[in-house]
Structure formats: structure tokens, C-alpha cells
């Protein structure tokens, strides 16, 4: 026999108390009477009429002890291992995203959701198992299927909400796979419904029950932040901050900008409901450092009121242009930035490593360069799986204008005489599409960034359009290793920190936003340090030897900042799932009765001894 609640045996301590009561010589009140003759006679007579008087007392003791032992045994919830038909499974999915920290519910939405889940644990019928999934920075199974309520409660109590966006899709996929084999199972999602990408569950028969938490949307937050060079003043940096208001009233507040915790600038904002406002701060930056924007408005969610971004001072960009002569390209490169230095050559320079990027204009070097490459009309065979096909006057049908490289670039009136067309390789994403193939791709091989354009700009009308210098400038910015580095230090909460290693590292650790340190495991073969526990917003610092690398983890998520509790879960075009009201459940309360029974038993014992011999 095993016990679900072995702590119940603690009540066995009351057994000796009963025996003690029995053994204790009761304190009697002394009383002088005229004669004890009548009392002796009375006692003799009553005992004579109950010959088993003494024995009966012992019987009573034994019965009391037996009863108490049974109650204690019941409190420890014994069970025997047997075989039952596979019972139903309840999958609890806890949304642990940033929006669940909102304080419109008391104390937070997450605590309310946790209490709801705890009630569900209380109502768990025997034979029913429960799984606890958490959809926070990552989706993970926190408790594998069990019917042990103590374990389930402990697991739920240990959960905390993170500062990250929700990963509900992954969690629901896990729930789906768990419920596939169990016939009578339910998935209970405790969330405020701030999630997208649930389209795939519109068609699946996932037995999903959506428990909504949250009352209102009273929140304004920083939804984007970026640092760029000020094109008009190279000494200054332009910090773009976007603030959105999801409250139902107009907010009147200020946004502070701090550089390494020193206040640099403030800007007042007045923001109507459901509006957002872009702010630009122009400040001088004396050194590498962290810009922090802070919204001073008090609302239900504090996480999105600050955002940080790491900014490094722009260094000179050295570009090697390998061309037989292309004035358009040369001028466009020279104008790409204030500190761009272009070296023109007809072959890749020998000191290639000292250049930030190499531009190949129709010249294929014997060995592909190792630096970041912008390539025009060259076929580097180990970049593509299949040889390129020659396309005559390919019509441009689509281009990715959302990609940073094609920002403000249009191909509306660009004609191309001749181009190489390729099939997009796995490492790349297409930039310019025609009906017959892709004319331009971009991507990373290892840590080398590559932009490949299949046609010679001189054999097209592109260099005459405004889009060409903009594209070249975008390329120089994107291919600049400094940009790539600074982007690496900018993560969303929940994303892992990655630090590529150039040499052997013996010792490394991470300083978390709360100041605590955590060692990172390193071994001789490690080429990259990865740290995944980035659920909290703030600055993470990796210390490795004498080097320090600062990472900024920000929420910066529109959906999480929008605290409006969704009455329906958006399952894409296929439909929605309405939030359920409380489901009637059978909550176990027998323990309380057992406890009261124990108390009554003790009371009875005490009372009995108080009034009888």
C-alpha cells in the first residue's frame, strides 16, 4: 500500500495523546464529607451492577485508538497499485507571456490563471491525469502526466510569468500530440488570448477550452526602438522610439531617454486611444553604450514601459570594389555613408581580411572572398545547388520591400536586358523574383553575409533610378560587420544569447538583469556560447576573460502590449474559440470533514474524561 499524502501520518501524533489522557491521573477535587459510607455503598452497587466496568473502559480506549488510527490512515490517502483503463487526460496550458503580468487582475493575471488551474487540480477525479505546459519564452512541459495532486500543485505554484512574447503555437502542438492517443482528453488554455498563428488549430479537432483572464486594457508601451546614425550630423545618433496606447483614454506622459543610466532627453507625448506615435531623439554619443527609453506613464503592465538598445560608435567602413569599371557603383558606394572608404581594384586584394566588405562587379575571383560580399553578375558555384540559367529581359514580378535591403527601393520602372536566374538556395531568401526564377538573393553562410544580384546593373535601367544608390547604401549598412554585430546584441526576451567564439575560452559567465551571475559551460570544442534563459527584460552581460559583451533583451511586442483580453481565440480563417465560463467541477472537500471528525473525536474524549470516572 502506498500513500498519496504521507504527511497525513503526522496526525498519528495524536494517538499517544489519547493514551496519555487515559493514563493521566486526573486531578481530583478534595472534598471533606461527613462519612464516605454512603459513597462506598453507592460505588459498590454501581460497579456491582456493571461487572465489566473496568474492562469496558479499556474497550473504550481500544475503540478510540482504532478509530483514530483509521482516521489518520484515511488522511494519508492510501492507495494500492492496480490497473485501471486509461483515464482521461487534462492538459493545462499556462500562458506565461509578458501580458500575463498585467495587474488589472489582483495581483496579476498570471496568479489568477494559476488559481483557476489549482482549482482544476482540486477537482481532478481519480484516474484522470494532468499535464502542465507553459507557453512563455519557450513552450515546455513542466509536468508530465500524473494524477498526484501534490506534485501538480507544487508545479503550478513554482510557475512564473516571463517578460517575453507568448509561444502558444508550440505549446498547443505539444498538447495536440499528447491528446492524440487519449480518447477523453481536454486542453485547458489559461490565457488572455494575445496570440496569433493559431490557424492550424482551426482545422484540427483539438479539444481546446479557453479560460480567459484579464479585465481591461489599460496600457501604453514602447513597441519599437532603434538606433541609427544621423545622416545630417555624423556625430549624432538618431534613436527612433515608437509608443503605442492601448488604453481606452488619452494618455499624457513623457518619454525619457537615458544613455548608460544618465538622462539625456525627455519628450512629452499625448496619445489618443489605439494610436501610436513615433519619436526621434537626436543625441550625441560619446562612447559605446546603452540607450534606454522609459515611458513614465503608470499602467497595468510595467514591462513594456522601458526598452534598451546597444549603440556602438560608427567606425570607418572599408569597401573593396572588384570591377573593371563602374562609375555608378563606385559613386553609390562612396555616398553610402559618411565614413565609407572605397578601394577599387580588378581583383580581390590580398589583405582581404582588413576590408569590411567586398563588392564583386562581374569579376569572379579564383577563390570566393571570406568577408561579407555584395556580388553583381557573378556565379559562385558553391553558393548555389544548380547552375544559373540565362534570362533575356526578365520581367520583375515581385520584390521583398519589407526586407531591410529593399527599404525605399522600387523596381516599378526597372528594365533588365539580361540576367542570371537561380533557384533560391536553402541558406538564402529571395529578393527579386521573375516568372522564370530569382534574380537576387540574400542570406548568411556561416557568419558570412551575402547579397547576390544576378544581373549587371549597367545592362539595366536600375542605376538611373533613385532606388539604386539607396539599395547600395542599405547593402553597405547590412553587410557591415559592425551592424551585424550590433544586431546580434539586440534580442527579444526569450531568444537565446549567442556569442561566437574566435579562440579558446576557459571561463565565461552571464550577469542577469537582476545582477546575479550564472556560469556558462565551455569546452574545448565550443565555437559559440549560448545562453537561453532570457525570460526577463533587461541587460545581459557575458563576461569571458577580460571581454564583456552587453546584450539588450526587450519585449517590443505589439500584441503583448495590447492588454485587451480577447473574448475569442483567433484560430485564423477557420474560426474562433470563445472563452468558456467556469465549468462545474467536483471539488474534493472530504479532508475538511475528516479533520472535523478528528476534532470531534478528541473533544469527545476530553469531555468523557471531564465528567466520568
Amino acid at each position: 500500500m502506498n500513500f498519496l499524502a504521507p504527511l497525513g501520518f503526522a496526525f498519528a501524533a495524536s494517538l499517544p495523546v489519547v493514551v496519555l489522557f487515559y493514563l493521566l491521573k486526573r486531578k481530583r477535587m478534595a472534598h471533606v464529607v461527613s462519612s464516605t459510607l454512603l459513597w462506598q455503598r453507592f460505588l459498590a452497587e454501581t460497579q456491582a451492577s456493571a461487572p465489566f466496568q473496568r474492562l469496558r473502559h479499556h474497550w473504550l480506549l481500544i475503540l478510540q485508538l482504532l478509530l483514530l488510527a483509521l482516521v489518520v490512515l484515511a488522511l494519508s490517502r492510501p492507495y494500492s497499485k492496480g490497473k485501471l483503463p486509461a483515464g482521461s487526460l487534462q492538459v493545462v496550458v499556462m500562458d506565461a507571456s509578458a501580458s500575463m503580468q498585467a495587474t488589472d487582475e489582483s495581483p496579476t493575471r498570471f496568479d489568477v490563471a494559476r488559481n483557476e488551474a489549482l482549482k482544476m487540480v482540486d477537482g481532478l477525479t481519480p484516474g484522470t491525469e494532468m499535464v502542465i505546459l507553459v507557453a512563455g519564452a519557450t513552450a515546455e512541459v513542466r509536468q508530465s502526466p500524473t494524477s498526484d495532486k501534490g506534485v501538480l500543485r507544487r508545479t503550478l505554484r513554482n510557475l512564473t510569468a516571463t517578460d517575453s512574447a507568448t509561444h502558444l503555437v508550440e505549446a498547443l502542438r505539444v498538447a495536440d500530440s499528447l491528446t492524440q492517443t487519449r480518447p477523453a482528453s481536454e486542453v485547458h488554455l489559461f490565457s488572455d488570448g494575445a496570440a496569433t498563428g493559431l490557424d492550424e488549430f482551426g482545422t484540427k479537432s483539438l479539444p481546446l477550452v479557453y479560460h480567459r483572464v484579464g479585465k481591461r486594457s489599460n496600457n501604453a508601451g514602447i513597441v519599437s526602438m532603434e538606433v541609427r546614425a544621423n545622416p545630417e550630423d555624423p556625430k549624432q545618433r538618431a534613436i527612433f522610439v515608437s509608443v503605442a496606447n492601448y488604453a481606452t483614454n488619452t494618455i499624457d506622459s513623457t518619454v525619457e531617454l537615458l544613455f548608460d543610466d544618465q538622462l539625456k532627453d525627455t519628450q512629452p507625448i499625448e496619445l489618443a486611444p489605439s494610436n501610436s506615435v513615433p519619436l526621434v531623439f537626436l543625441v550625441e554619443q560619446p562612447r559605446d553604450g546603452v540607450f534606454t527609453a522609459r515611458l513614465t506613464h503608470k499602467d497595468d503592465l510595467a514591462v513594456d514601459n522601458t526598452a534598451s538598445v546597444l549603440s556602438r560608435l560608427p567606425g570607418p567602413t572599408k569597401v573593396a570594389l572588384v570591377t573593371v569599371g563602374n562609375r555608378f557603383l563606385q559613386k553609390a558606394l562612396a555616398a553610402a555613408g559618411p565614413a565609407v572608404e572605397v578601394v577599387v581594384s580588378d581583383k580581390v586584394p590580398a589583405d582581404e581580411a582588413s576590408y569590411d566588405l567586398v563588392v564583386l562587379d562581374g569579376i569572379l575571383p579564383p577563390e570566393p572572398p571570406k568577408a561579407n560580399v555584395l556580388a553583381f553578375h557573378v556565379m559562385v558555384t558553391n553558393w548555389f545547388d544548380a547552375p544559373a540559367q540565362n534570362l533575356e529581359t526578365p520581367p520583375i514580378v515581385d520584390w521583398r520591400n519589407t526586407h531591410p535591403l529593399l527599404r525605399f527601393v522600387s523596381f516599378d520602372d526597372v528594365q533588365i536586358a539580361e540576367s542570371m536566374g537561380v533557384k533560391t538556395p536553402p541558406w538564402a531568401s529571395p529578393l527579386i523574383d521573375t516568372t522564370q526564377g530569382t534574380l537576387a538573393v540574400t542570406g548568411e553562410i556561416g557568419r558570412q553575409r551575402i547579397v547576390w544580384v544576378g544581373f549587371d546593373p549597367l545592362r539595366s535601367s536600375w542605376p538611373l533610378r533613385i532606388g539604386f544608390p539607396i539599395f547600395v547604401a542599405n547593402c553597405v549598412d547590412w553587410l557591415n560587420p559592425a551592424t551585424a554585430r550590433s544586431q546580434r546584441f539586440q534580442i527579444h526576451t526569450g531568444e537565446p544569447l549567442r556569442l561566437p567564439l574566435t579562440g579558446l575560452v576557459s571561463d565565461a559567465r552571464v550577469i542577469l538583469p537582476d545582477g546575479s551571475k550564472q556560469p556558462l559551460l565551455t569546452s574545448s570544442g565550443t565555437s559559440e556560447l549560448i545562453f537561453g534563459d532570457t525570460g526577463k527584460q533587461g541587460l545581459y552581460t557575458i563576461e569571458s576573460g577580460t571581454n564583456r559583451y552587453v546584450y539588450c533583451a526587450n519585449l517590443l511586442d505589439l500584441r503583448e502590449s495590447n492588454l485587451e483580453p480577447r473574448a475569442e481565440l483567433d484560430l485564423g480563417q477557420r474560426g474562433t474559440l470563445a472563452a468558456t465560463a467556469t465549468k462545474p467541477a467536483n471539488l474534493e472537500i472530504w479532508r475538511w470533514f475528516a479533520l472535523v471528525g478528528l476534532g470531534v473525536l478528541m473533544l469527545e474524549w476530553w469531555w468523557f474524561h471531564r465528567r466520568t470516572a
Partner: protein
Amino acid sequence: MQTLLNPDLLRRLEQMQLLAARRAKSSAKGERKSRARGQSVEFADYRAYVPGDDLRYLDWALFGRLDRLFIRLYEEERELPVVIFLDASESMTFGEPRKFDFARQLAAAVGYIALCGFDRVSIRVFPTIGEGGRPSLDATSPQGIARRALNSVRGKRSSLGFLSHLQALEAGGAGDMDAALKRGAREIKSTGAVLVISDFLDPLGYEAGLAALVARGFQVTAVQVLAPAELNPAIHGDLKLIDSETGAIQEVSFGKFRMSAYQRSVAGYIAQWEAFCKARGIRSLTVSSGTSLSDVVLRQMRSSRLVG
């Protein structure tokens, strides 16, 4: 005197007399019928004259008719010795009102009736001086004097002193009732009426003493005085009861729910005592010290044919 018997009761007691079931055997003259022939107004019999008889008792009318000399015999009226055994042991000091006070009043009432009827009253208080672990009681103390004075009282004139001596009595110490009664039966010369006033709660028993009195030919009346608290105890809980006389300890747990069992037990004890008395021709009466004295004397004792 005022505290023992009130004047109204005294007045009513004067009209009463002790009912003696037997003829008086005392040698002293009194107002009781006796078997002895002597001088009185009650004619009893004739007997033939023998020389030396008092010629004043010759029946001359009979001599005239029969020509023989006869002496008229008259019933001799003798006194009835009334002995009252009064229990003054420690156990009698209990009760509200005290059992001893009640017993003393009862003894006073009966003694007063006897004194008014020209009977000799003797009150024997036990435990006697020096008995029952009471060394302070010596014969020269007021207590000793009172006890000695109560040994023999006669005549209504003595009633004032009788009552005041009774008033002076104190109770205390452990008594041996059997021994006291047996000693009384041995010592009293002329048999008469005996009244035993006690609670009959002597651990050593009462049977042998009463039986000795009956065997001596006394007309014995036993009055058991119990306190209301003994009949209906007000104490309850886990108790350690200490016997006032013997110091014996009895542990008992008592409550209202066991009251009826206790009352049954007490009733059984009284019934046993009454049965003992009845079997030996002893008139018995059980009274509570809480009842009024006049009720006991004027009603209960009357209906029991103790007084009339």
C-alpha cells in the same frame, strides 16, 4: 433555650407525653403504670390479710360481707427512665442545617416531654470524653460539666437547666456507636425507653449496639438524622472524598446523571436499616436535618406512636 426550642413548641410539648409500650420497671415513684403494687388511686386487686399489713388498706365493706380480712392493693405508679443516646461524632457536624443541631433539638423536645411527664431523663452523649481522639475534653471543662449534668434529670423544674446544658454540648471526634450503646446497655440499671439519635453512618456498624439494648429489655426508638446534602449531593466532578471521622479517602466521579443511582443506593441503605430495626421491635424514623422540628415531633413521631 431560646435557640433549641421556641416557646410555642414548648407549650405544645407540655401537652404531650411519651407513649410507653411497656410498664415501667423503675424503682422510683413516678406517674407511669407499673407491675408493682403500691400507693396510688388506681385499684388493682385484693389479697388476704397477713399480720403486719397496714390496717389502713383493709377493706372493711368486704369484711362485713364475707367476714374475712382483705387488703386492697393499688397499682404502684413508677417513673419511666428515658435514656437518649445522642451522637456527637464529627460526622454529625455536617449538613446545612447541621445534623447535630437538629439532633440536639430533637433530644431537647423528647427530653422536655419526658420531664413534663415526671420521667427521669438521661442523655448519654457519645463519643464520651477522652474517646475519639479528643483530649481537650476533660471532665472539668464546661463541656464535661454539661455532659455530667445531663446524666440524670428529673422534673419539670429541671428543664431549664436541662435545655441549657444541651445547648452547651459540642460535637467532634470519631465515635464508636456500637461500643457506646453496649456500654449503655450494661450500665443502665432500670430499663425504660431508649431513644438513639444518630446518622447511623458509623463504619463500625450499629447492629450490635442496638441489639444489646433490645436484649436488655429497653423500648428502643431509633431516629436517623441525615443531612440534605447526603440525600441529594450538590457536589460533582472528579472528587477525592475525605471521611471526616476516619480520614479515609474515596475517589469518585460524580455528576447529575448518576444522582438517581446514588439516591437509590441511599434509599437501599435506609431500607436495610429500617428492616433491621423492625425485625427487633425497634421503632425507627429517618428525618432530614432540613425538615422543621415541629413537623418531626408533632406529626412524624406522633404517627409513629412515639409520643402522644
